[in-house]
């Protein structure tokens, strides 16, 4: 995922703690494929005095097929 995002992307804020991930694998990625990531924040909320963000991540190949998709939960710096 990080190879698809620049170093200053909001997903890579220093101090972000990964709380959990859920990934589903759809089709294989093969040599010579070109992978694209579409990611967005779905939700953010305060819980136990921590700021949680819910991420939606989908990887596509060059034909637009979904390779895998995932949802992540991170704890962000306040």
């Amino acid at each position, binding site marked *: 995922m990080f*190879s698809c995002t620049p170093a200053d992307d909001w997903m890579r804020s220093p*101090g*972000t703690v990964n*709380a*959990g*991930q*859920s990934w589903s694998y759809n089709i294989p990625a093969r040599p010579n494929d070109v992978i694209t990531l579409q990611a967005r924040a779905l939700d953010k909320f305060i819980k136990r005095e921590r700021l949680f963000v819910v991420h939606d991540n989908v990887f596509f190949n060059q034909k637009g097929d979904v390779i895998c998709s995932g949802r992540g939960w991170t*704890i962000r710096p306040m």
Partner: protein
Amino acid sequence: MTTTFESLSAGDVIDGPKFAVSRESIRLFCDASLDYNPLHLDDEYMKGSFGKTNFGGIIMHGMNNFGLISRMITDWAHPAGAVHKRLETRWVKPVRPGDTIQPAGIIKAKQTTEKSRWVLIDVVVKNQAGEKVATGEALVEFPRDLFCQ
């Protein structure tokens, strides 16, 4: 004995490989994942607190747990012609250099649908003290005929 869908029962256990965590292994994971978050590298940064949490030092990537679980599931499924389809995890305790962690799986349920056959697996990763550091659930498909997919 080769694992088959028919031979599996709820409660069957899958043992994963032990993994010794070190600063070097964490650094290697940084390079492999391109995740250079100071949580995993910077002792000075980790003297600070994260809300109410102070980790007391650098911690392993949560996704290193994910990789270890994936290896266990794949090593178990592949020889049986099965395919790892889904993994959901929660990181419940930080893992630090010097820890030794080990994933395990317990077959929770089997289900047959019109298109395929599925196995649900509870997964857990524990450290050397027997503490759970990650929990989750995996889904593995046992295609009736892998070569017809």
